[in-house]
C-alpha cells in the first residue's frame, strides 16, 4: 500500500502544478492562492467558539421556538503577535448556520473531504448522557465540536481561502443572504438527486473505488465501537460497597473496618467520573471520523457521478456521429426507426436532409466541446480529490493514533484507581 501512495504522490505533484493555473469554473474565489500553507486563514486569525446561550424567537412559520446560539470570537494573529492583546470580534451563530456553511462548501468543493459538524441529535449515548438537545452537557460538547469544525476548515489548504468562510466569521447579518445569492442551492439539489440515483459506471476509477470501500469500512468500524454500551468495568467496587454497607450495620467488631472500606468505595465512584469524561471525549473523536468517513465516501461518489455523466455525454456524441454518417452516406448501419421509415415511405427531400445534417453538425460540435470539458472536469476532480484524500489520510492516521494513545492512558488511569481503592479497602479489612 505504501508503494502505491508514494508513486501517486509523485504523479500528483506533477499534475497539481498544471492545474493550479487552470481556470476552473468550480473555483469561485478569484483571489485564490490555494495550495500554500502560508496563506492559511488560521495563521492569520485566532478563532474560538467560546459560549452557548439559549434564545427564543419566532421561526420561519411564525412559531415560538427555543434554540441555542454560539458565540464566535475572532482576533487578528498579527495584533496578538505584536502584544496588543486586542478584544475579540464576536458574533452569534446557530447550528443551522454552520450547517449552511458546510453544505455550501460541500457543493462548491466536491473533491474535498469536508470536515464534519458535531452530530445534530445525540445518537450514540454512553453513560449518563441524555438524548436531549437542550442538555447542558450535550450543548457543551457541541460547542467544542463546532469550534473544532471551524479550526479544521480554517487550516485546510483549499477551504481556508473560501470567501464565504471569511464572511461567516466576520459578518453577522446578511451572511445567509450572501450565501443564497451564490445559487449553490440549485446545484446542491440537482446533485443530490443525481447522487441518490443508482447508476453504473463503465470504467470506474480504480483507486477511488478502493477508497469508497475503505470509507465504508471506516464507517462500519467506528459506528460499531460507538454502539458498544459499556466500555469500562466499574462494577467491582460496587459489589464491595453493597457488601460493606450490608455488613457494617450488624457487626460490632467488624463495623469500623467495613465502614471505612465503604467510604473508599464512594470516593472511587466519584473519581471515576473524570475518567468517564475522557471516555466521552474518545467517543467524540470516533464520531468525528465516522462523519469524516461519510464525507470521504461522498467525494468518491461525486467522481463516479462525473464519470457517469462523461460516459453519457460520450455515448451521446457517438450516436450523433453515427446519425450524421447515416444521413451523409444514406447507408443504414444499424437497425433504426429512421432506416425503417425510409424503406417504407422513401427518403426525404435533399433540402430537408441538408437542414438536418447542419443541425447535427452543430450538435456534434457542441457535444465534442461538452465531452472535452467533462473529461477535463473529471480528471481534475480525480487529481484534486486524490490530493485531498492523501492529506486526509495523514491527518486521520495522526489523529486516531493520538486518540488511541489517550484511550490507553485512560485505561491505565482506571486501573491505577482500581488498584488504589482495593488496596485501601484491603487495609481496612486487615484491621478488622
Amino acid at each position, binding site marked *: 500500500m505504501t508503494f502505491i501512495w508514494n508513486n501517486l504522490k509523485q504523479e500528483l505533484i506533477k499534475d497539481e502544478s498544471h492545474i493550479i493555473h487552470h481556470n476552473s469554473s468550480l473555483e469561485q474565489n478569484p483571489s485564490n492562492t490555494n495550495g500554500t500553507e502560508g496563506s492559511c486563514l488560521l495563521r492569520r486569525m485566532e478563532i474560538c467558539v467560546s459560549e452557548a446561550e439559549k434564545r427564543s424567537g419566532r421561526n420561519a412559520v411564525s412559531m415560538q421556538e427555543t434554540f441555542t446560539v454560539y458565540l464566535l470570537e475572532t482576533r487578528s494573529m498579527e495584533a496578538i503577535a505584536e502584544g496588543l492583546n486586542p478584544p475579540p470580534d464576536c458574533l452569534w451563530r446557530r447550528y443551522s448556520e454552520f450547517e449552511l456553511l458546510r453544505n455550501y462548501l460541500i457543493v462548491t468543493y466536491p473533491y474535498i473531504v469536508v470536515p464534519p459538524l458535531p452530530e445534530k441529535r445525540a445518537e450514540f449515548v454512553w453513560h449518563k448522557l441524555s438524548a436531549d438537545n437542550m442538555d447542558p452537557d450535550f450543548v457543551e460538547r457541541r460547542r467544542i465540536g463546532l469550534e473544532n469544525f471551524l479550526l479544521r476548515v480554517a487550516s485546510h489548504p483549499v477551504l481556508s481561502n473560501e470567501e464565504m468562510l471569511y464572511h461567516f466569521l466576520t459578518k453577522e447579518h446578511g451572511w445567509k443572504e450572501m450565501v443564497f445569492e451564490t445559487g449553490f442551492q440549485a446545484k446542491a439539489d440537482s446533485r443530490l438527486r443525481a447522487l441518490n440515483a443508482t447508476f453504473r459506471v463503465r470504467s470506474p476509477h480504480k483507486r477511488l473505488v478502493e477508497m469508497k470501500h475503505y470509507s465504508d469500512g471506516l464507517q462500519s*468500524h467506528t459506528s460499531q465501537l460507538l454502539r458498544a454500551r459499556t466500555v469500562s468495568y466499574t462494577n467491582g467496587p460496587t459489589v464491595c460497597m*453493597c457488601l460493606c454497607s450490608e*455488613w457494617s450495620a450488624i457487626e460490632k467488631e467488624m463495623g469500623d473496618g467495613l465502614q471505612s472500606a465503604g467510604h473508599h468505595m464512594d470516593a472511587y465512584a466519584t473519581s471515576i467520573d473524570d475518567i468517564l469524561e475522557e471516555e466521552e471525549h474518545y467517543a467524540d473523536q470516533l464520531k468525528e471520523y465516522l462523519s469524516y468517513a461519510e464525507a470521504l465516501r461522498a467525494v468518491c461518489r461525486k467522481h463516479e457521478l462525473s464519470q457517469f455523466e462523461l460516459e453519457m455525454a460520450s455515448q451521446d456524441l457517438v450516436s450523433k456521429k453515427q446519425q450524421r454518417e447515416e444521413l451523409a452516406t444514406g447507408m443504414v448501419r444499424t437497425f433504426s426507426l429512421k432506416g425503417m421509415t425510409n424503406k417504407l415511405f422513401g427518403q426525404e427531400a435533399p433540402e430537408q436532409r441538408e437542414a438536418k445534417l447542419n443541425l447535427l453538425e452543430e450538435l456534434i460540435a457542441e457535444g465534442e466541446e461538452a465531452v472535452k470539458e467533462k473529461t477535463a472536469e473529471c480528471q481534475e476532480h480525480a487529481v484534486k480529490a486524490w490530493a485531498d484524500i492523501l492529506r486526509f489520510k495523514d491527518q486521520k492516521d495522526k489523529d486516531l*493514533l493520538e486518540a*488511541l494513545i489517550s484511550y490507553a492512558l485512560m485505561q*491505565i488511569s482506571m*486501573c491505577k484507581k482500581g488498584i488504589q481503592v*482495593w488496596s485501601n*479497602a484491603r487495609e481496612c479489612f486487615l484491621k*478488622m
Partner: protein
Amino acid sequence: MSVGVPRGLASSGQKLITEILHPLSAAEEPMSPGPDVTAGADQEKQEPGLTNGAPVEISSPSSASVLLSRLQLDDELEADDQDPYGSTEARDLFVTVDDPKKHVSTMETYITYRVSTKTTRIEFDLPEYSVRRRYQDFDWLRTKLEDSQPTHLIPPLPEKFVMKGVVDRFSEEFVETRMKALDKFLKRVADHPVLSFNPHLNAFLTAKDLNKRQGLALLTKVGESVKHVAGGYKLRARPAEFCAMGEYLDTFSQKLGTIDRIAQRILKEQSEYLTELREYGAVYSSWAGSEEQLQRPLEGVAGCVTTSCGALEDLSDNMSQDFLPVLREYVLYIESMKNVLRKRDQVQAEYEGRLEAAVLRKQEDRTPIPVEVEKCQDKVECFNADLKADWERWQRNKRQDFKQLLTGMADKNINYYEKCQDAWESLITLLQEKQTEDKTSETN
C-alpha cells in the same frame, strides 16, 4: 495446614529429623503410603477402578513425628495471621482433606478423598494416619457429633444434594469446591476443644472401614441422656444473651441472603459484560485489517482488550468458586446453630417444668425436690456454658473467615487491575514510540 516436606533442624544433631527412625518402626521410608494409594497418587486424578474406600494406614517413626509436629507447630504459630484456625493453644491434632479420586463400581460412581492426620494425642494409637473417605462418611460423622454433643455448635458440611441435571458432580470445579469445604469442616472439628476428642472423630480418622451400622453403641451413652428431653414443656423466658444470639443469627442470615443475591447479580453482569467486551475487541481487530499505518496500533488495542477479558474471567471464576461457597457455608452454619439454640430452650423448658411441678408437690406434701430436677439444672447450666463458649469461638472464627474472604476478594481485584494495567502500559510504549517516529519522519 500442610503435609509438606519438613525442614530439617541443624541443631538436632548429625542426622536430619526425617532420617531418625523409631526403633519400633517397620517402614524404611518415612511417610510412604500404602500400595493402593501410591498407584493412584502418581496417575491422574480421576482414576477409576481403585479398591473402593479402602483406607490405608501409615506407620512412621513416632519420635521423629513428635519433633515433626512441634516443628509444624512453630510454623503454624508464625503463620498465624494467614491461618484462621491457628490459636494460642498448643495444637496437637492436624487434619487435611485432599487428593480426590473417582471410584466406579457396578452400583454407583462416587468420589473419595484422602484424610490425613498427624497427632501426638494419646487417644490415638499412632501418630499418623491416612484414610480414604467419601461424602457419606463425613455426613455420618456430623450426625454422630450432633447426636453425641448436642450442646455444641457443629460446623456445617457442604450441601448434600445436587441437582443431577444442573451440576456435574464429577467436574473438577465441583469436586475442588466440595473438597475445600470438607477440609474446612474437619479442621474446625479438630480445632474444637471438646469435639476433637469425640470418639466418633477418632474412628473417622483412623478406622480402616467405618462400620456405620454398628454405630459404636457404647460411645453414644453421653448423648443419650440429653436426647431424652421430654417434649411438651414450654419455655418461659429465654435468657437475654441467648435472645441476642437468636436475633443476631436471624439478621445475619438475612444479610447473607442479600449478599448472595447481589453477588449472583454481579456475576451475571460480569458475564454479559465479558461477551460485549469480546465483541468490542474483535471490532478493533477487524478495523486493523483495513488500515495501513494504524494496523499495529489497532491490533495492539485489540490485544489489550483480550487480556482484560481473560483477567475478568479469572475474577468471575474466583467469585463463584471461593466467595459464594463461603457465604453458603455460613448460611448452613446458622441453620444448625439455630437448632442448637432450640435444643437449649427445650432443656431449659424441661428443667423449669419439672422444677415447678416439684415445688408444687413440696408445698403440698413436703416431698423434697427430687435429684432428677437438680440433674436437669446441671444440664441447663452445662448447655449454657458450652453454648456460650462455642458462640465466642464461632464469632472469632467467623471474623477470621470473613476477614480472609474480603481480603482475598481485594487481592483478586487488585490482581485483575494489575494485569490490565500491564497490558495497556506495554501498548502505550509502542504507540508513543510510533508517534515520535512519525513526527521525525514528517519533519525530514
